[in-house]
């Protein structure tokens, strides 16, 4: 059986599964190559933020920050604040879109509103929820467009700062947007938390689905990469420069994406995640640090999760979606704090470099999870090599293992193809 393509995933991908005796076999395959190194080699380093944004908008920011290090410059405060605000807008749009997709799994999106009454598979989804969620995503997108020039392929983050600051009218609009985003985020959260948990809610049949106990990888407050094991204990901590010494990439012939593993433990295949050589990234990995949220409403939401599901760490699908919600609220609050005239105004928004280094590293918590950039350039600042490890690569092992687990459950439960497909797509989207 083939599920191709998979809904809601950014890279073209599919699941192929079959039965061998009474055991199911399943493969999650990414069906197109990444092409990152090939596209970037030979390009001027300063073009990388615009090229690498094809992986996700956050890669534009990560690349600009990597280039700050390469060129040895520190952006002015206004530019740093603008980048932070842009990241919050990206987180908001990313998480709102995922929640929109989750709700859309229960609602007929495009039925003619003037035709027969809109068909719903699920009576517990109020009619405003889809509209509210896409409206929140659209507001975040507008904020990202003001700050980044374009949302999906931003252009304003440059080495040394930003190419421009928002104009007066744009500042007014950013303030309006951030106020609306928070209201929308709180309204959406009222429905979502009930939907995650209620019987016959959005995650019907998926409450017990969890990823295997693999380590979570995230950046801590000091900017170091931290590996938390499945029980929440911090087991490894290393600086950016050591990332590519610490992690290796393993390739299998049946998928175009490699698997990230701890070099120290060696690659032992996809069945031995208990040995902690595999890890995952994303909102749930970040929350499994069990640190208080940075903003008040988000912290209230995090406490609600703890009251309902128990203390961190969590590895379940409902927890993964709830983590999206907590970060959605946190981003809405943070955007409000950042979008103010004091923080985003000024005469200085860019520092011009005077020299070019040869190597740079950078890691950033993108909306979808931790991402790593590494560049090597020649004496003219022309790219020799680029290594980008995005969250889809980081979570490739998780997705493969989750696929096997979901397919095995569905086969044992004699689910239909459509039921299996829907469960797979929701679970994979959660991470």
């Amino acid at each position, binding site marked *: 059986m083939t*599920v*191709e*393509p998979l*809904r*809601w995933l*950014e890279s*073209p991908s599919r699941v192929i599964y079959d039965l061998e005796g009474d055991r199911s076999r399943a*493969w999650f*395959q990414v*069906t*197109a*190559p990444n092409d990152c190194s*090939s*596209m970037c*080699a*030979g390009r*001027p*380093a300063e*073009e990388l933020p*615009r*090229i690498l944004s*094809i992986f*996700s908008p956050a890669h534009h920011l990560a690349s600009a920050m990597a*280039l700050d290090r390469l060129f040895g410059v520190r952006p002015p405060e206004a530019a740093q604040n603008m980048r932070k605000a842009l990241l919050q807008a990206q987180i908001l749009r990313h998480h709102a879109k995922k929640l929109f997709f989750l709700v*859309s799994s229960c609602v007929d*999106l*495009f*039925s*003619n*509103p*003037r035709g027969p009454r809109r068909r719903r598979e699920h009576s517990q989804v109020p009619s405003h929820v889809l*509209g509210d969620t*896409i409206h929140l*995503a*659209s507001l975040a997108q507008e904020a990202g467009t003001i700050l980044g*020039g*374009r949302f*999906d*392929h931003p*252009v*304003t983050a*440059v*080495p040394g700062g930003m*190419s*421009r600051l928002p104009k007066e009218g744009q500042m007014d609009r950013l303030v309006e947007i951030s106020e609306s985003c928070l209201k929308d985020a709180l309204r959406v959260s009222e429905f979502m938390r009930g939907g995650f948990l209620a019987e016959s809610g959005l995650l019907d049949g998926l409450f017990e689905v969890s990823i295997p106990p693999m380590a979570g990888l995230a950046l801590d407050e000091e900017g170091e990469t931290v590996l938390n094991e499945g029980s929440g204990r911090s087991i490894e901590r290393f600086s950016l420069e050591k990332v590519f010494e610490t992690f290796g990439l*393993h*390739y*299998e*012939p*049946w*998928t*175009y994406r*490699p698997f990230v593993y701890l070099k120290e433990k060696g*690659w032992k*295949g996809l069945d031995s995640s208990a040995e902690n050589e595999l890890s995952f990234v994303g909102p749930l990995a970040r929350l499994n640090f069990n640190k208080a949220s940075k903003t008040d409403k988000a912290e209230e939401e995090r406490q609600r999760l703890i009251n309902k599901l128990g203390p961190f760490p969590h590895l379940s699908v409902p927890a993964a979606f709830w983590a999206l919600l907590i970060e959605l609220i946190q981003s809405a609050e943070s955007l409000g704090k950042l979008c103010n005239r004091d923080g985003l105004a000024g005469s200085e928004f860019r520092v*011009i*470099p005077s020299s070019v280094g040869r190597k740079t590293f950078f890691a950033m918590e993108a909306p979808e999870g931790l991402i790593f950039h590494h560049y090597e350039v020649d004496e003219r*600042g*022309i790219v020799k090599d680029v290594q980008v490890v995005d969250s889809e690569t980081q979570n490739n092992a998780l997705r493969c293992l989750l696929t096997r687990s979901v397919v095995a459950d569905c086969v044992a439960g004699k689910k239909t193809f459509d039921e299996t497909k*829907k469960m797979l797509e929701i679970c994979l989207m959660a991470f």
Partner: protein
Amino acid sequence: MSEAGLAMSFSRVGMNQMSQARKKIAVFTATGCRACENAVLDIHFQVGSLGRMAEVVFWPYVLGSQLQDLAELDDLDVCFFSGAIRTESDEKAALELRKKSKIMVASGACAAFGGMRGLLGLRAKAETAPASDPAGEAGPPLPAEGAGAVALSGKVEVDYFIPGCPVPQNFLWTAIQSLVGRSLPLSRISFAAARLPEKIAQAVLSGVLPPKETVFAGEKAVCASCSRAKEEKRFELFKRPYEISPDPGRCLLEQGLICQGIATREGCGGLCTGCGVACRGCFGKAPAVYDPGAKMVSAISSTFDSTDASRIEDMADSFVDLAGSFYRYSLPTQCALLSKGAEGKKRAESEEAGCGCKAEPVA
């Protein structure tokens, strides 16, 4: 009949027209970043209103439609195809969707021109896949990858193009109204008509399809809509984008930055230049331009502010990665065009040699 009754009648007629007029559409991305599909989702915050004029019958990213279901679908009216053709799976989907669709739209720079993945064509040598563990897991085979990225027109006939990386929402909505919503009242398609060149707008307002191969964008180069002041184009010194913080009011090319605006089709409103960064050509070449790279070389070299040969040579040597800049989004289609031209010339020459008469070379 009372006024209220008349209004009810018109409203019923309108509703009947609209329910009869709903076109079947497909939205698909081959190998791409989903930004063009996000543009469909984000149309003026009203993605649901697409349901008024269209029945979205195939949209894998949002509706979970499966490739295996394509064979059983009724014919489609319009397919919005994004992404470059990178693997055999992409090619198969393109062929199947072309067979099913009355109208095929290349949506976004990747589908229209090959996009940034076209830069694979500039790599020194093809990468070999990293070695995998021979004792590793066996699994199903992958779709084979092509030598590089190909635009949609390299595999199937394309009826219309919406350029941009990603497609801007105004032109996307314009294309949807023009191609999908033709039976809508004038008041609804006036948005589309207002944004199109005159001849295309006339077709749309008359309820007919625009001419084949219409590009849903402007008719001039980006410079026509860029807000920066153009004074005298004199190129004194080439500057890399990280070397200067450009004057916000002045043409970037005049400040020594390589800006593609002069060779790129307008329609974005000078988005990048308005943000202080140079245009990189995501709307494709301007209508009057055959080769954007040649156009840029001509434009820049004609503005060199020196007559000293060694100075000119120094300036020329200082440029970096011109091919990667001038053909950032359009390398596949430009190479295909030049190949077609070369083949045509060869054919003309051999015909001339064969029949002894002069044949006109194909441009």
